[in-house]
């Protein structure tokens, strides 16, 4: 409606611009710089090609040794776990957000607080808590044992890693969806009912399409950190599921800064391209906004 002139808006933005240049743009330039240079800071693409070509031998399920592209396998594994976790978050988060948005205002506030409380705690501590819950002699197996049920082995499996990721990133899925649903004009839902939709029709034809931007940002906010996560897999996966985040951390600790930067850079480019594609398709669907 009222379009500000760009020049007028610049001055108040100066502190924020300075902040983002210092703490976002400059570090990114450094990452790129390290990724494309060698130890002596001469230009090279070796680090990048190493990501795609490095191989190692792993034992396949049938016991034979196989040569694989190390980092592509790691990246594939990260992507798989991240996609599964994101999907579970969405599956649980969407109905929950819907129910929250329709609840009484007081109930809404309580639920939002309950969802945010775990975020106030340190991420490492939360992961440690899950270790004690999931261990072979942990809380879950104690409870199962109490009822005379055989203990189950969770820790050190992909399931444990996924549980940890879902738990940690769930709020990032539910909050954007909830906030868009809470803002939704109830008159639109009434209009849909008025025009012949039953409850499912209202959900399918009005609520879901209108909540898509929230779903997209929820997916983005869960998928991206869970692709690059590194600590959860070490602790809950007993180190068996080496992820791309662990690879970056490992190279960094081993002081291979240039290769660590290269992996980080490639990851960033892949995520940026994904986000760009998503953004392109959503803006195509929601052209007016």
């Amino acid at each position, binding site marked *: 409606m009222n379009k500000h002139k760009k020049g007028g808006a610049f001055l108040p933005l100066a502190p924020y611009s300075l902040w983002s240049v210092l703490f976002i743009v400059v570090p990114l330039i450094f990452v790129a710089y390290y990724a494309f240079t060698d130890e002596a800071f001469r230009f090279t693409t070796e680090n990048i090609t190493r990501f795609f070509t490095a191989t190692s031998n792993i034992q396949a399920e049938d016991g034979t040794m196989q040569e694989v592209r190390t980092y592509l396998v790691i990246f594939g594994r990260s992507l798989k776990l991240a996609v599964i976790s994101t999907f579970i978050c969405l599956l649980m988060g969407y109905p929950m957000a819907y129910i929250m948005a329709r609840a009484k205002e007081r109930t809404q506030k309580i639920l939002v607080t309950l969802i945010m409380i775990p975020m106030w705690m340190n991420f490492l501590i939360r992961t440690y808590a899950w270790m004690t819950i999931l261990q072979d002699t942990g809380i879950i197996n104690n409870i199962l044992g109490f009822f005379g049920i055989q203990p189950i082995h969770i820790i050190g499996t992909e399931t444990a890693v996924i549980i940890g990721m879902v738990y940690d990133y769930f709020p990032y899925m539910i909050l954007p969806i909830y906030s868009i649903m809470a803002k939704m004009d109830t*008159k639109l839902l009434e209009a*849909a*009912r008025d*025009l012949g939709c*039953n409850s499912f*029709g209202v959900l399918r*034809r*009005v609520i879901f399409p*209108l909540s898509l931007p929230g779903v997209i940002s929820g997916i983005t906010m869960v998928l991206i950190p869970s692709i690059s996560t590194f600590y959860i897999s070490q602790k809950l996966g007993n180190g068996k599921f080496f992820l791309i985040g662990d690879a970056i951390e490992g190279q960094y600790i081993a002081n291979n800064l240039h290769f660590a930067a290269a992996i980080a850079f490639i990851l960033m480019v892949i995520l940026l391209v994904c986000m760009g594609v998503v953004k392109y398709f959503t803006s195509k669907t929601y052209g*007016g906004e």
Partner: protein
Amino acid sequence: MKKIIELKNISKAFDGEGVLNDISLYINDNEFITLLGPSGCGKTTLLRMIGGFEHPDKGDILFLGERINDVPPHKRHVNTVFQKYALFPHLNVFENVAFPLRECKVPKDEINKKVNEILGLVMLGNFAGRSVTSLSGGQQQRVAIARALISHPRVLLLDEPLGALDLKLRKDMQQELKKIQQSTGITFVFVTHDQEEALSMSDTIVVLNEGKIQQIGTPADIYNEPDNAFVADFIGESNIIDGVMLENYKVSFSGHTFECLDKGFAANEPVDVVVRPEDVDIVAPEKGMLSGTVTQVTFMGVHNEIIVDIGGFKWMIQTTDSVNVDEHIGISLDPDAIHIMKKSKYSGMFGDYSSYSNELDELADAGGEE
């Protein structure tokens, strides 16, 4: 005439506060009926009940004689044009209008035909592909009407649909709505707080206040024969004076006995007398039935609006004569200028222009709704 909707003894309270109080009303097929009242009078709640969005605490809603209290909105042959249109922002004009047809799985070419036809009717033929957010208020309004009409409801509910439009557009849309109603033969139930709108469009007006029906009648009935002081004041301007009905066709007020056209009151029954400002004749003081001093003159274009102090009671008179402040004038009333009402709980609350100011009146009008 066939009754399409009947409301029987409807009561409704929100959080213990009564909104509708024993409302009984029927709506004829093919009529244009207006629910008129100030904000908070319960008119929107009543409309939402017919639409199926509210449920009465007491009483029944009948549709062609069948009780529909528990029928959900999507199963009623009633559609609504919402106050702020409630168009779907993720759909373009065409898809908004096609929305109800897609729900009924109407074949594609039939949808195309019907949507284009109705977009033509509301003069939006070239707008099918436009995003609804890019339309003006008047255009959005037309989309909302087209969307509500396309599945041929038996009844169309309109909740203050013209409230957001500017005056000129509102007048045009009033005419157009009336035309659409007549050409489609669909029953329109229209909610407004604008009395002029109600008078110019409706076949029947239902005046509501404080959750109760004050009067039901044709626009002429409501204007000429208001039932009580609230109706007389709400519909147009009125001087409402305490009087006594001496006998049939004779009423006394302001110290003078007038002939009138009303009968059927008890002898010496106290009554409210309504005199519309445009029905007062100004004459020389010595020739007048009453006389008084002009305290205020406002030029309104077509006429002057003057306030006259007659024995301490301030009258509003609309006249094309030119008079000056402090001038002493006489007034004369024809028998048909006088309308007699029984005393009601609204007696004495309205119809005295002692504290009258145009500006205040306009402020009160504008601040009315939600």
